[in-house]
């Protein structure tokens, strides 16, 4: 799922993602979610807009699609004359242009979802591409923010049906079931732990690899439930404890200060950039604490539990996860791996972070009669929690259900005086003028989200759907055939139909990205910018290992032979190459290999690497010469033949070679212009951050050498990178004057349609 706010202005330096999303959507407090100022249901928010360019707004700023989707229906805005007169002008001038989009995407394994976004009160004219049934891409222009009740704003609404509510949030009950672990089909964002009463906190733990508590000094035993959230980001790990408020059950207070990198160990590394950065060192911590199977230990550190149980077994089964946690009055060590402690993620919409599903107003009118909301209002916490309420009530845009929704106004309520028939008719005329054919959604109730919170929340879910993945494959690849000899080659062989490699590997790839924290757009751009190129557009998980030698004069093939490091050639999504790397991966997966065989092969590889002339004439890397056991051969071959292994080995490469710190740096895009043979000028994009992330795996000697040209296929990798930046981020591309103004990469590279 890839999603963004309806305005995409540049970020401020150092601005966090939630802050940026919030800044893109300033909300009219009189037209907030889920209630308007008359305490009636309001299905969305009014996003304010101004033409003041000094505040960062373009003079004519377009509202944009928040995600890829299809236009369900739309209405071109009426003229300004009609806007200014009744029935559109009821409480003030009101534009009536609208666009309703349907979005289909994936948020997890076998977890396809459908949701809708509605943009109402658009002015002047809709974007030319907007027509019923049209396919729209994220960030595409929809129309212009108009006027509602004389205020420069548009109504923005996000909703779904009950079937998709269950898929999106996992429940329709107000609170999360904390008697069992959370969902694993989708899992993203923060990891949460429920610590039941009776949980012991220990002063210190001398052996972090042992679950034994016999000799530990207990400093605290809980008498109330505690909830701990674990956040990974930019190399850090933050632990935050919450407990239920003593007077308001729906409110959770934080306990102590957030603990940042409290469990980072100097034993894990001494690299300046990543020293004592808990997240950046997870791989090394996993190797240190879980030497029998670091890969499954990595899952424990990352998720608090083992997720890929069909591929991994925790050894020993009671291996602990000791973390420093705040309790009321202090901090102590808790074994979070204990089965008594339940584990969740943001995908479970935990109620201790404010999420509550509101389904207790069943009368189908527009008046909010929810006891849950009434309780929040009474406690004084409604405004704190309103943006995280997901509410079930009717859509307000069906003229046929107007009386069902608003008849109560004729008699009034405790807060609203009875409305005269004349006033009621005027209101109905106004509302009907804004209504549209709501089709299947016109009757019954729908689940409504606060749009800003929905977008902020799901920006943490980086699971790529089939359509999203496809867009990362550029339409053309730049290939360097020789010095200053470039070729611009159309990529016509991408096939992602059922049974294809791209279709089959997608789930494994998403799972690997989830596990190895390749969970920001820029990290994904670096990971797949390399992986998609190395596998020939996800076509093959194996390096082509037949080599040919040609006569430089006649160009005739004079000899064919295998690559010199055969059979330890590249396999997997980020191609694992050489016995050194294979054995490191096997060890990470907890697969024991005889030291003698490992050392012999590593030494032979090193010898051949150093002596180019001996590589084919005195090569002793073969399986038969080294008596390589059948299980090692099978593990090696599985790295390409088993797509779980292909993705898992790439994730291993990502963490073992520290790609994340480079991917997290600022990506300063450089516009590169080349003139390939028989083509006009073509443009591709690179950045020092992408260079470094790529070089750390492929050409470590040149990490600090951004102008180096020798990395195999780097220009081609950059083509994927450019598409990934366009599809996954909101970053703009520099033009030929180096101004970041282009929304899409030049040279028609996006694969859409």
């Amino acid at each position, binding site marked *: 799922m890839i999603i963004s706010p309806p305005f995409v202005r540049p970020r401020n330096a150092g601005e966090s993602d939630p802050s940026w999303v919030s800044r893109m959507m300033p909300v009219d407090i009189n037209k907030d979610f889920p209630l308007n100022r008359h305490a009636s249901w309001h299905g969305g928010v009014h996003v304010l807009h101004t033409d003041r360019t000094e505040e960062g707004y373009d003079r004519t700023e377009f509202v944009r699609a928040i995600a890829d989707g299809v236009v369900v229906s739309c209405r071109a805005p009426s003229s300004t004359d009609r806007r200014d007169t009744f029935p559109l002008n009821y409480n003030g001038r009101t534009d009536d242009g609208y666009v309703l989009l349907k979005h289909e995407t994936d948020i997890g394994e076998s977890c396809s979802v459908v949701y809708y976004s509605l943009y109402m009160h658009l002015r002047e004219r809709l974007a030319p591409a907007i027509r019923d049934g049209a396919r729209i891409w994220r960030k595409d222009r929809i129309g212009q923010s108009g006027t509602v009740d004389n205020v420069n704003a548009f109504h923005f609404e996000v909703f779904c049906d009950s079937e998709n509510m269950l898929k999106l949030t996992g429940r329709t009950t107000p609170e999360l079931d904390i008697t069992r672990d959370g969902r694993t089909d989708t899992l993203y964002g923060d990891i949460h732990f429920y610590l039941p009463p009776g949980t012991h906190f220990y002063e210190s733990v001398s052996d972090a690899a042992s679950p034994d508590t016999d000799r530990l000094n207990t400093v605290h035993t809980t008498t109330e439930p505690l909830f701990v959230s674990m956040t990974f980001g930019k190399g850090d790990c933050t632990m935050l404890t919450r407990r239920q408020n003593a007077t308001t059950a729906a409110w959770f207070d934080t306990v102590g200060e957030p603990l940042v990198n409290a469990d980072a160990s100097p034993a894990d*590394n*001494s*690299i300046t950039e990543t020293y004592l950065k808990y997240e950046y060192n997870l791989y090394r911590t996993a190797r240190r604490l879980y030497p029998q199977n670091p890969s499954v230990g990595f899952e424990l550190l990352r998720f608090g539990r083992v997720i890929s149980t069909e591929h991994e077994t925790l050894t020993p089964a009671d291996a602990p996860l000791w973390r420093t946690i705040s309790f009321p009055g202090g901090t102590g060590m808790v074994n979070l791996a204990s089965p008594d402690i339940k584990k969740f993620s943001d995908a479970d919409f935990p109620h201790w972070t404010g999420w509550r599903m509101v389904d207790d107003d069943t009368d189908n009118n527009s008046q909010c009669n929810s006891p849950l909301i009434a309780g929040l209002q009474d406690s004084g916490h409604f405004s704190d929690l309103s943006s995280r309420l997901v509410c079930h009530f009717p859509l307000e845009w069906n003229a046929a259900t107007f009386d069902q929704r608003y008849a109560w106004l004729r008699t009034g309520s405790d807060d609203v005086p009875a409305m005269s028939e004349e006033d009621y008719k005027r209101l109905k005329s106004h509302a009907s003028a804004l209504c549209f054919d709501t089709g299947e959604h016109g009757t019954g109730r729908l689940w409504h989200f606060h749009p800003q919170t929905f977008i902020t929340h799901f920006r943490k879910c980086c699971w790529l759907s089939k359509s999203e993945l496809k867009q990362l494959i550029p339409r053309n690849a730049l290939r360097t055939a020789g010095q200053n000899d470039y070729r611009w080659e159309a990529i016509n062989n991408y096939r992602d139909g059922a049974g294809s490699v791209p279709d089959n590997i997608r789930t494994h790839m998403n799972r690997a990205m989830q596990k190895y924290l390749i969970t920001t757009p820029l990290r994904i751009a670096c990971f797949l910018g390399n992986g998609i190129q190395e596998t020939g557009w996800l076509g093959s998980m194996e390096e082509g290992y037949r080599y040919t030698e040609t006569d430089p004069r006649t160009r005739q093939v004079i000899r064919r032979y295998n690559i010199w490091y055969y059979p330890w050639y590249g396999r997997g999504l980020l191609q694992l190459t050489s016995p050194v790397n294979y054995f490191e991966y096997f060890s990470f997966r907890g697969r024991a290999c005889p030291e003698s065989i490992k050392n012999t092969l590593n030494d032979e590889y090193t010898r051949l*690497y150093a002596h180019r002339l001996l590589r084919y004439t005195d090569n002793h890397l073969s399986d038969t010469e080294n008596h390589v056991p059948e299980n090692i051969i099978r593990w090696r071959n599985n790295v390409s033949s088993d797509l779980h292994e292909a993705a898992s080995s790439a994730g291993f490469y990502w963490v073992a070679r520290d790609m994340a710190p480079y991917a997290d740096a600022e990506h*300063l895009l450089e516009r590169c212009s080349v003139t390939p043979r028989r083509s006009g000028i073509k443009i591709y994009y690179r950045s020092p951050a992408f260079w470094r992330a790529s070089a750390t795996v492929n050409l470590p000697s*040149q990490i*600090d*050498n951004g102008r180096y040209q020798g990395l195999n296929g780097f220009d081609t990798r950059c083509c994927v990178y450019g598409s990934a930046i366009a599809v996954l981020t909101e970053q703009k591309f520099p033009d030929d004057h180096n101004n970041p103004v282009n929304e899409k990469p030049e040279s028609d590279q996006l694969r859409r349609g």
Partner: protein
Amino acid sequence: MKKLLLLMVIPFFSSGEITPEITTPDNFSELSFDQLTLHRGNYLADAIDCKIISLKLFHPSEHNKYPPSASWLCLFAVDVISNGYGPGQALPEKVYLDKKTGLWRKKKYILNKEGTQRTLEVYGIKSLSELKPLELYNIRSINARGYAVINRNIPLEEKKKGVKKKLSFCLIQNQGYAAFCGFGSIINLVDGKEVDFTPYMLKSLETVEMGLPEKPMK
């Protein structure tokens, strides 16, 4: 074994050498150092298994903590020799190994029109004459030899982050296939004051010992 015993009794500094010689600051002390032991996992990148590497990181005696600034790499010696220093740095100079003498040397070359333009853009300068020459040192450590290059030409983007002077080095293990390399900014802010760590780092490189036996990570 006799040879080994002999090496063990030789005073520490006799095994290292910097060419050309450098003048150490007045406050330089052989006793002011942090012992650094690098194992697999401590490297920014490792193309080959360097096993354990140890070195003493010298620091000014008045500052009890050396500001860690270098990124360490463990690379194939053959790649280090093939790459040298310079290509890709957009400079009209490079450093290469003279295989006859075993010494690293500087060589000038002429940038073409495109290369010149790129250099001007990378460094944010108007003329190539604004570039400062590279400073090259040949280093001999306890069991490795190689180069250290001081580069005062800082790409614009790094300049904005306050980088003023960079050091890059590569030491190739004697009779081995591995090379220990590193790079980083060499002028650091210590207690609000700029300290040039160049002589301390060069002296530190003399103490590099490579290929020590592996120890468990725990």
